[in-house]
């Protein structure tokens, strides 16, 4: 069997192109980028050797600290929000709407496929104050409240970003968690109901523990995605006001392309990559330990 399926020529022909493109345009650049962290300058002006100065700068630069703090806050709040709202929605689909949930599921999922830039511009107009009140401020006015300058203040802008990204993505996590909930065997739920577990108690003691694995993987996916947030923030606030809503990704982009410092930009990119790696490994570890304990 193995000599047919182990045909070396077939492996080379079928795997070769993908591996070649992947190696040339992803693997090598990753290591090349590591090399950049010891240099300063850029592709157009040329590079000079900078030793470890990029790393020294990385740890003392307040802008990096601010961006890192923003990224972490954003990732934690969005991850918690996405998974929580997604879980509530999936419970709604499975236990309240049952068979009729297909249409609602489809509609709530829709914003997920929309281009981020389009959604961000839409939200910009919705939360606008000048020259014209947007939907949100008009609604506030209708209830007798004054207009709010949503993008004039870092904290408020942060919450607009949060609202937008939750609006965009909760339908996705709802579907992801829904597939997990549907997999719970009906007889387990039925026997729990016969034992008198109803409503919230059924969910807390039976459904929640059984959906723990799919909840955990959702958290991993979500953190992994939110740490890399770029599109939605660039299009909605462009990091402003000032640099109040600048994540690491955008700070790296600015450092590299606006200020032309590839070496320092690569150092920030490396920090981001390590952050993603640590979080993923950490969650994998802790989830594995918990599973063996149970």
């Amino acid at each position, binding site marked *: 069997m193995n000599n047919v399926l182990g045909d*070396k020529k077939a492996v080379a022909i079928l795997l070769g192109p*993908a591996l070649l*493109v992947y190696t040339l345009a992803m693997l090598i650049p990753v290591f090349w980028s590591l090399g950049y962290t010891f240099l300063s300058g850029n592709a157009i002006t040329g590079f000079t050797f900078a030793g470890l100065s990029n790393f020294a700068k990385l740890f003392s630069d307040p802008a990096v600290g601010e961006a890192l703090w923003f990224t972490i806050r954003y990732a934690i709040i969005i991850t918690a929000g996405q998974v929580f709202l997604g879980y509530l929605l999936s419970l709604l689909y499975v236990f309240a709407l049952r068979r009729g949930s297909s249409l609602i599921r489809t509609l709530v999922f829709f914003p997920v496929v929309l281009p981020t830039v389009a959604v961000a511009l839409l939200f910009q107009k919705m939360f606008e104050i000048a020259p014209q009140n947007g939907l949100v401020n008009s609604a506030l006015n209708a209830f007798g409240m004054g207009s709010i300058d949503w993008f004039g203040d870092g904290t408020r802008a942060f919450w607009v970003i949060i609202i937008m990204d939750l609006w965009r993505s909760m339908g996705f996590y709802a579907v992801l968690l829904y597939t997990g909930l549907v997999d719970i065997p009906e007889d387990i739920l039925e026997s729990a109901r016969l034992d008198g577990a109803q409503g919230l108690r059924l969910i807390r003691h039976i459904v929640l523990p059984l959906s723990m694995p799919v909840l955990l993987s959702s958290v991993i996916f979500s953190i992994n995605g939110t740490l890399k947030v770029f599109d939605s923030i660039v299009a909605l606030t462009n990091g402003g006001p000032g640099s109040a809503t600048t994540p690491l990704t955008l700070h790296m*982009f600015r450092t590299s392309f606006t200020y032309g410092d590839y070496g320092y930009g690569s150092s920030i990119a490396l920090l981001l990559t390590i952050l993603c790696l640590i979080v993923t490994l950490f969650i994998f570890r802790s989830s594995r330990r918990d599973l063996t304990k149970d």
Partner: protein
Amino acid sequence: MTAPATSPTRTSTGPAVPGPRRRTSRLKALKRLPINLLVALLLIVEIYPLVWLFLGSFKTQDEFLNSPVWALPQNFNFGNYAEAWTTGNLATYVANSLIATIPSLFLIVLFGVAAGFALEVLVWKGRNTVLLTFLAGIMVPGQMILLPLFSAYFQMGITGTLWPLIITYTATGLPLTVFMMATYFRAVPREVFEAATLDGASMVRAFFSIGFPMVRNAVFTVALVQFFFIWNDLLIALTFTNNADLNTIQVGLLNFTGEFGAVQYGPLFAAICINVFGTLVLYLFLNQRVMKGLAGGAVKG
């Protein structure tokens, strides 16, 4: 939900052991009400902004400035669309997006499916290592590869074309595709391909004549997922299209406000609508498949 649940308990004679049939039917109607309200609210929150966007694309500048924001447009003229399409250069941006997306998708599917087959169906030493290497690529942030690629494209002198986009999209799309295709091929018994080789076909032939057609549904789903990732991408497009003639639709839309000044609402809304329209049509026809595919590609975050 507490009020309807407690009031019948007080009036009914046997609260501890409720008569199941009659009470559940009455309770059901009451229980349904908050849920229906919740669903209605949910749909308003998710859908109304898009309706508002669509209606806005027909409004004139005067209506934007002098009518309430939730007013309906006075008439449905497509002037804003024409303006966005021609004066706003949206035609160029859409063309660029298509030129970058279609070849990338073709290459991702061809290379990715073949690699998934080679890694999952064929048996050879080291295949797990290679699969893991591809898997690691899903996690790496785009920022980690942008600068070396930019330097490389600059040295090669292809920065004035759409080639950097096609190459980068292909490379970044491969890890997830290979990973997803390997999972799909796991479900196909190896005997199928062995039988094909007994009939005299080579393994490469077996892939193209049996393997690929067998998973064509999965291939379509994977292509759909990649389409959304590439079409909606901003980071890579922003990095490698440094002149306005090469802008993809996302970059073009981002700079759209700049071309008209911030106040030309109608064309901007129309431009956003055009951008949304492509994904809307795909989603309208293929929603179940899109949902399944994107959920399958959730590893990407």
